């Protein structure tokens, strides 16, 4: 490493060593004292209540990012929410609470007293993004075409058949840069997929015209012409990034020349070189210019264009966005906001519902996991109801709280064929639409009534059973087994996934099935009785007072989402319970109302947190807190509208800036 490059780091290191102890020593000592006095009675290395040993946190060396980061985060969470010390112990005094939070803020949120965004990881295309990117670069359709009839199978695209799906990372999403970066990319699969896509491209005159600006891929061109074609293709494939273009031009021109000398066929040789380009690192990874800085600095326009399109479209920027990026005008806030709106007005925004929504809420498994396969119609209808619902939140700029309750919903077309269904279809102007209908072309043209597949229809909520994505057939199914519902699974889903509260069962607490006999429950207890008994035990109570009502309140929805008032054995369903704040409910609708009352802000914040992590391609860290708070508080002003959250994410330092160390 050159001296020039190593200098800032050495300097930084000196600064840390010299500055930190004197400035922070007092704050750390204060926090450590609180931990020692108030936490270690239960959480020392011997007692380790709930499997938690906080004694290492007394070491100064463990008091910043390192092996104990997670433990610190957990401690700070518990203290901030007032969940520890537990109810039967004296709560922390304000000063004690402040001591822990202040140290945490200094040490984990700030760096050297300043806000920062942490190192920016290199991002690799996911399978989903790879397919979108190939489609855009080659101007050929590769995804499964939408079908308006039932054919008997749920087909996947050739690309998804060839390329394995990605393993989600700590962020919970498969676009997690750290996970993708730690794994070997399946290059043989990428190459086969690119080869297939180029084969489609080769046979598609319109695509050739769009990409190369000529009627055909020439089979006999001059070397100069061929080089021009390759250069053009390179820039397109590399999303306008010309940083290392001359190097690549030289290399790929050379490779072309070598190949064509043997093949004597410029078309074959061009396609061969195209395939190389489509599996090259510059295509598969989104490189940004690094300044080796430990403080945030703005990315350039082109980099921002790419970040923005992969966030909102999970695909590459189009020509307009590229131009604005290239000339730097995208860096102006007004231009950027306009582009956000333009991108959200495009059919490509389906990525947000399909890829983000499908992964976050889990309804994506309905189309991918054989576990949920019932029949083509049911799976498509169930999935589409959720997909259309999620998109409607964005399309009409609605509040994310409508995930829980809404006056409208998408209802499967087959349900509207039954006589006396009573549903009232909403007129196109019933909701104040902000963006275009991306599903407009999905109306069925098939006449055959048996095989016809119609997309779900926007209807007015009917009575108290309907409304909200939470009680959609999709969510009710993915939180159940095939043969029965599980209030616990559902309750945990609401808490974990929707509210964003992590529920880690301590190792010494038995699950409810295990506790059944321990609690001396009669032979065939009802579901509610079983849960009630469970909650009466203190060790179970802590979590199950929160979990159980959320699941019990959904018991009127059977495992495939249909409404029921009796269990299969004809015992009545009782969907009543009491929320942790003591308020009682007697129906799913009432439970959802209380859910919003009690956890509305948490749900909105969690939506923002999840989308932020998805946008950044990494798990959020304490240093992201200031931005997250800003996003959430701005969104709260207008009742948590989706567009505000999206816009605020894009305007955050994390999204606009970069940091290397």
């Amino acid at each position, binding site marked *: 490493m050159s001296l020039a490059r190593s200098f800032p780091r050495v300097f930084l290191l000196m600064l840390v060593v010299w500055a930190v102890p004197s400035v922070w020593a007092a704050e750390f000592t204060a926090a450590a004292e609180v931990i020692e006095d108030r936490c270690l009675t239960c959480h020392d290395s011997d007692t380790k209540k709930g499997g938690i040993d906080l004694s290492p946190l007394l070491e100064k060396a463990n008091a910043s990012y390192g092996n104990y980061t997670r433990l610190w985060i957990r401690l700070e969470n518990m203290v901030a929410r007032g969940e520890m010390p537990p109810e039967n112990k004296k709560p922390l005094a304000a000063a004690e609470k402040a001591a822990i939070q202040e140290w945490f803020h200094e040490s984990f949120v700030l760096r050297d007293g300043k806000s920062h965004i942490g*190192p920016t*990881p*290199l991002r690799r295309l996911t399978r989903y993004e790879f397919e979108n990117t190939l489609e855009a670069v080659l101007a050929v359709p590769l995804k499964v075409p939408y079908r308006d009839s039932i054919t008997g199978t749920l087909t996947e695209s050739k690309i998804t*058949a060839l390329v*394995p*799906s990605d*393993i*989600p990372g700590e962020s*919970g999403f*498969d676009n997690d840069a750290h996970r993708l*970066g*730690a*794994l*070997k*990319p*399946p*290059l*043989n699969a990428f*190459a*086969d997929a690119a*080869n297939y896509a180029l084969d489609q491209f080769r046979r598609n005159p319109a695509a050739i015209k769009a990409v190369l600006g000529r009627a055909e891929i020439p089979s006999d061109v001059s070397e100069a012409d061929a080089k021009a074609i390759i250069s053009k293709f390179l820039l397109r494939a590399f999303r306008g990034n010309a940083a*290392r273009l001359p*190097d*690549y031009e030289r*290399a*790929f021109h*050379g*490779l072309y020349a070598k*190949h064509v000398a043997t093949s004597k066929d410029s078309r074959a040789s061009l396609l*061969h*070189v195209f*395939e*190389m380009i489509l*599996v*090259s*690192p*510059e295509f*598969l*990874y989104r*490189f940004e210019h690094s300044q*080796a800085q430990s403080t945030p600095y703005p990315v350039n326009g082109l980099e921002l264009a790419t970040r923005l399109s992969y966030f909102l479209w999970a695909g590459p920027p189009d020509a307009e966005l590229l131009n604005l990026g290239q000339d730097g005008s995208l860096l102006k806030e007004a231009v950027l906001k306009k582009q956000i709106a333009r991108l959200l007005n495009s059919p490509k925004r389906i990525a947000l519902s399909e890829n983000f929504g499908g*992964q976050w809420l*889990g309804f*994506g*498994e309905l189309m*991918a*996991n*054989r*576990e949920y396969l019932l029949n083509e119609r049911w799976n498509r209808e169930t999935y589409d109801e959720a997909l259309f619902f999620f998109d409607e939140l964005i399309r009409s700029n609605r509040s994310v709280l409508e995930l829980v309750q809404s006056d409208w919903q998408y209802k499967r077309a087959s349900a509207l064929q039954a006589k006396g269904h009573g549903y009232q279809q909403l007129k196109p102007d019933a909701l104040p639409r902000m963006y275009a209908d991306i599903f407009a072309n999905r109306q069925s043209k098939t006449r055959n009534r048996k095989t016809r597949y119609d997309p779900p229809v926007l209807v007015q909520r009917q009575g108290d059973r309907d409304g909200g994505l939470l009680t959609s057939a999709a969510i009710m199914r993915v939180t159940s*087994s*095939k*043969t029965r519902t599980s209030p616990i699974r559902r309750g945990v889903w609401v808490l974990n996934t929707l509210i964003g509260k992590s529920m880690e069962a301590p*190792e010494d607490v038995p699950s409810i*099935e*295990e*506790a*059944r*006999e*321990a609690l001396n429950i009669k032979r065939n207890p009802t579901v509610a009785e079983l849960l009630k008994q469970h909650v009466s035990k203190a060790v179970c109570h802590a979590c199950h007072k929160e979990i159980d009502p959320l699941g019990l309140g959904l018991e009127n929805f059977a495992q495939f989402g249909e409404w029921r008032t009796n269990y299969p054995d004809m015992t009545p369903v009782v969907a009543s319970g009491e929320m942790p704040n003591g308020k009682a409910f007697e129906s799913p609708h009432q439970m959802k109302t209380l859910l919003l009352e009690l956890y509305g802000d948490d749900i909105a914040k969690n939506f923002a947190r999840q989308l932020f992590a998805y946008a950044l391609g990494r798990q959020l860290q304490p240093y992201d807190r200031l931005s997250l708070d800003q996003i959430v508080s701005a969104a709260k002003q207008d009742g948590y509208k989706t567009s505000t959250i999206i816009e605020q994410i894009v305007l955050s330092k994390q999204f606009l800036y970069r940091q*290397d160390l």
Partner: protein
Amino acid sequence: MKQDSYLIPRRTFLKGAGVSLALPFLEIMKPAVSHAKAKAAKADPVRLCVLYKGCGVNPHSWDIVGGTETEFELSKILRPLAPVQKDIVVLGNLDNDGVSSHMDAPGTFMSATKHKDANRYSFDQRIADYIGHQTPIKSVQLTADNVWKAHPWLNILSYDKSHQPLRGQHDPQSAFDLIFKNAAQATRQTELASVLDGVRDASSSLLRKASSQDRQVLQQYFDSLRDVEKSIERARANGQVAAADPKLAEIDPTLEAGNLGERVKAMMDLITLAFWTDSTRVASCMLANTNSRIHYDFMGVNAEFHYVSHHVRNKKVLPAYDSINIWHTAQLRYLIEKMKTLPDGSGTLFDNSLILWGSGIKHGDYHSLTDLPVVLAGGGGGQVELGRHVRYPEARPFGNLLLTLMKLMGAPAESIGDSTGLLPGISSKANFKPVNPDDGSWKITQSDGQTLTAKGLLRIEIEGEQEYYLLRLSDKSDLEIRIPFMNNHRLRFDRNVGKVVVVTGQYKVIGGKKTLVSLKAAKAP
């Protein structure tokens, strides 16, 4: 695709979801097989197949009680293996270390190394790294259980040398293509090699210019590049089966994914075929992961495997739990019988294979890692003495079995994970002393009006959903033990079944017989 000239129409070969390995198909493969054989070394190569079944067992339905090494009665779960009892070795008292979560169990089983993600290099891959260069495909990973987009870890068995997880093929058609067709397309292989070669040339400067963090990520890219290149070279050097018989590339069996039963059968067939054609010598298959949500309705049990595996406080699920495990041992029998029909070298394919069948946890509810349920089958090229039940007198690290299998596969190593050495009793009789011999000391040693202490061999009986215990005494009588659930639970008393144990507790006289009704202590003598 043109109508082929085979004996039977394509599309009927591995018909639909059923995928029976029809004899004509094997006949067609013959030239390819002989080709592969001609290339093979003089000694018949040995193949390794690992079949993993998660969710553990109900120990009482699994454990073989009594008998000798060669004369023993199969337990309830092992009974499907009765027709092939002379072809298996049931191993007992092999332990792994640590606790085992759903995600962790398969990886620990394959590497004897704790913790998902960290430094795992599974034993099948260690073997493949040794011998994989001799076959067109280094190793094959399959997963019959459903794959969760959000939790793919559940189904991962194998980790390569750089600790990368190797994901299994879930779709039998893709697996077929991978084994018999992809690498068979010589033209495409050449093209692919040239593409990757070009990419390497064009991008080599990138690595130098990248920032240090980016470089770490890029390293994975270039490692992958090298892997693919190696696999192409390997396929070339070893003459892909289909390359020897180009017609094979036109076989299109149109395998459907079907239900779990159909998938498992298809995968057993594919493994058999891959071994027989010497396309690869190492294969693994995830039959069921340790959080398997599959409903076994295709074999008449409409319940989730994982749900019924948590059976301790929910006894009514036990029949379903046992049935599913019994089905899984039946799949092993299917593979054994299939392999035995195929001539290979001087014997059959079975004689030249090693099959390891097992679960990474023993007790389905407690997720215990001790005394793992393991069956070994296959002659291993004459290296395994079959038809035995070997129960190690003291617990041995499970890693010792992996180390032993590595040696038998020609991939010797010093150790794997927490292994301590090779396992005796695999290639020849163990001749251990019988377990739990009655030395005449099994009796009530102390008794007053209320409490007693007794020593004996603990067994279990099930009456409907109710279990009770019997302590076998030297006078051949049984002392009944009927204790409340929590008493049992706190002592983890159930774990003593099959062992000699000393118990102390309160008794009542019921029907003229002393019956222990609560226990104070239970421990090994």
